[in-house]
């Protein structure tokens, strides 16, 4: 028996065990950093020593009493809650345009919608700053909002376009045959059918907007400090234990939004498009 044959036999016999072992190892490695952050958020000594010797909830209390952190959270929420509906609206009408019309440049529009994902964030961030400067739009809430819409539209569109494309249009015709007008048909037939996909796209847009850092970093003014920008400052200047707490809060938020999104649409669609 040659060495190659022996190897093949070994893989045949133990391939599954080795594969599963590797999978568990990789998953563990992915989760260790997050576990360490969570553990450190309860450490009374602060950020320096690992593992912590005693535990406390003090850092959670101090985050809740930290006005700058709370302001940053509110700014982030304000930006994301305004940007998300705009993004969903833009993605939705683009989806209807692509699904229902034949027009020249359809491929071009689809490409335009995905292009912001491709160009490096730092390049687009800088380019936007230059452009806003040229047209005299001063940095602030509006520039951050525009940046967030540009950042989130491609991702929302990647979920919402397939949703609208896969909607069975004969249902609309049936509704119209039964005497419903266009508006009624849209409200009672089209919308309920595409709603889960649209909400999932919106949740993805919200998550990306709430976590957005690079664009915001470039186009913001000092008054518009979002939570990720605040985090960046904390990490760069002086690491305080509060960073651990904010990290845990970000993780919980991601888990919550992800579970809602998964329950509304298939996990596969989120994974392959998000």
């Amino acid at each position, binding site marked *: 028996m040659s060495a190659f044959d022996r190897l093949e036999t070994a893989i045949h016999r133990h391939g599954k065990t080795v594969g599963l072992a590797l999978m568990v190892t990789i998953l563990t490695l*992915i989760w260790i950093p997050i576990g360490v952050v969570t553990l450190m958020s309860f450490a009374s000594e602060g950020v320096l020593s690992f593992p912590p010797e005693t535990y406390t909830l003090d850092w959670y209390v101090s985050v809740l009493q930290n006005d700058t952190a709370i302001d940053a959270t509110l700014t982030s929420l304000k930006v994301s809650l305004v940007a998300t509906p705009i993004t969903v609206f*833009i993605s939705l009408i683009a989806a209807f345009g692509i699904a229902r*019309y034949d027009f020249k440049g359809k491929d071009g529009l689809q490409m*335009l919608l995905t*292009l912001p994902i491709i160009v490096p964030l730092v390049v687009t961030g800088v380019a936007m700053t*230059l452009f806003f400067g040229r047209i005299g739009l001063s940095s602030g809430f509006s520039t951050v909002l525009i940046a967030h819409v540009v950042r989130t539209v491609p991702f929302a569109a990647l979920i919402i376009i397939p949703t609208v494309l896969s909607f069975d249009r004969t249902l609309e015709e049936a509704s119209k045959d039964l005497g419903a007008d266009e508006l009624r048909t849209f409200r009672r037939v089209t919308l309920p059918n595409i709603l889960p996909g649209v909400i999932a796209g919106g949740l993805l847009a919200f998550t990306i907007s709430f976590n957005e850092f690079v664009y915001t970093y470039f186009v913001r003014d000092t008054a518009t400090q979002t939570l990720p920008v605040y985090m960046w400052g904390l990490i760069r200047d002086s690491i305080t234990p509060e960073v651990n707490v904010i990290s845990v809060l970000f993780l919980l938020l*991601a888990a919550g939004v*992800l579970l809602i999104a998964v329950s509304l649409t298939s*996990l596969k669609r989120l994974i392959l498009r998000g």
Partner: protein
Amino acid sequence: MSVTNRGREFLKTGAAYVREHRRARLGLFVGIPASVLVVFFIFPLVTMAWMSFLSDMPPAPLTLEHYLRIFTGDTYLTVLWRTTVLTVQTTVIVVVLGYILAYSIARFTKRTTIVLLLIILPFWTNYIVRMYALINIFQFGGALDTVLMAAGLAAEPSGIMYTHMAVLLGLTYVWLPLATFPFYASLTNLDTDLIDASKDLGAGPIKTFVRVTLPMTKNGLIAGIVLVSVPAFGSFVTPALLGGTNVLMVGMVIEEQFAAAFNWPFGSALGMVVTAIVVLIVGLGFWLGAGGQLGGDAE
């Protein structure tokens, strides 16, 4: 009352007009999304391209000096080379680990959903938070030092912050899920009858993998490579937080030109070079057949 009535009337006429005129409707459906992206994404890039040919802040004469400066001196070629090396290393590691992960999820485990959730959840968590989590581990006296010392592999804490290794591990950490998903998709789309046929015909697992599985998942593989190498090449946050000035990547230099050096035309030229390289990677990916997986078509 009459004002609202008139407003309602106006909306009705407008809606009727749009309904009856296909062009108007198309203009609305296509025009709004297209113009938002053209004005706020394409125009900025055009502004940057124009700026990259100016000798100084506008108004200024046109020049090629910034591009010459990038490609003639050692400084920026070194940065571009380091960026390329880190991108290639990251992509290779991520592709190998991602493929193992995707293969095991697709073939070996029944708990697919929970495993996929365990991979996607960190990916949905804030990027800076993930970097900070790694700092906790990499820093002097951090978790890595604790483990190495406990295992007797290190005598005293050293940490690996601000090293090439730290940046490489950081990039691998954040981009692993992005490659795993297209790999997983192409593996689940693969007809398992083909695998059985190959085995029935006497091919062992290695031969089957090399001759059947790998070629059949080629497009997913290319998509994964593109999805990882593109953001890795343009990354700025990871090298800035984990590498510092020791491991300068091109994204950091661009930021520095705008935030610290105030040489906007030069920063713009660097930005255009990075964009060109990234577009080249994506174009190559499409040409090699990853188009379907990179977006565009329906499932």
